[in-house]
């Protein structure tokens, strides 16, 4: 939700939205990793991220679903 309102807009900067891809890039690879037998950490996320055009096309789907989710 708020992610898309966060871009700084000023004369010198390009006025763009934070794309879904940018957000996914932030979320998927990073954050605190707490190691332990009972923690399942996501592996191969790069593969998911890089997966040809699959993600790009599904990003649209994801956006639709997210919007729908917010309306509900």
């Amino acid at each position, binding site marked *: 939700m708020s992610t898309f309102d966060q871009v700084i807009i000023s004369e010198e900067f390009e006025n763009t939205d934070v794309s879904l891809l940018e957000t996914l890039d932030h979320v998927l690879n990073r954050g605190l990793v707490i190691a332990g037998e009972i923690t399942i950490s*996501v592996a191969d996320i790069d593969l998911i991220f890089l997966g040809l055009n699959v993600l790009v096309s599904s990003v649209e789907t994801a956006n639709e679903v997210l919007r729908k989710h917010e309306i509900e």
Partner: protein
Amino acid sequence: MAEFVYYVYCIAESTAVAQLPGDSLPAAIEDDAQLEWISVNTLAALVSCVPKTSYSEEPLEEHLTDATWTAIRAMRHETVVEYVAKRVTAIPLRFGTIYLERDGIEQMLAEKGRELELIIEQLRGREEWGVNVYSDRAMLLSSITSVSPVLRELVERAEKASPGQSYLMQKKIDTMRVDEARAAVNRIVDQIEEKLKEQSDDGLRLRILKVETTEHGELKAKFAFLVKRSGFEEFRDAAERLAKEHQAAGIRLELTGPWPVYNFVTGFTG
């Protein structure tokens, strides 16, 4: 066998989260899940009970190959962590952190308490800002010719030379232009990193996962900076100065954020 497992979003201080309004929380990672704080001593973890059928190791790995499934959950993870990070100092956990038992989270909070408190102390009052550097190739190449005396002279000579000579000289000019442009981008990117590090507590150069060519040109570098809220104006001013300075060379800066501090909690190994 329990029917549910615990999805963990972030960790914050118990006293701080007690002040959060309980009624305006964003949606959890699954439609029918709730958000719940599990507190131990001074720390609290934000969790959701999620079905074991989707979130235990094997089904989760299966789900993660579905980009749509993953994208939706990752966005929800982000929305939840953002909500908390905007209001209190929070340690964002990596997407997909799951505990099979509630006891496990309590034990982790108790055992890692000191380390987690130290991290929170280092993050207090700070946010993560992303800076993307784009380069417009055509603008850069033409600006290179006008700023490089050697190249300018060659261009002038090529214009007056015979067709055969001119052709050879043109090839040389093209090669030089590309080399100089590459060196110029590297210099500019290094300068941006150095200047913005001066205005922040920490800075990291991130991997570029996908070569993106956008309306701003090609993505050349991606940075994350840890910036004090009180120092954000100075940070932004410095970024704007850099953007202005390199505008003529086809360089664009894009500032994104504030993000939860995903890139500045990775030193912790549990």
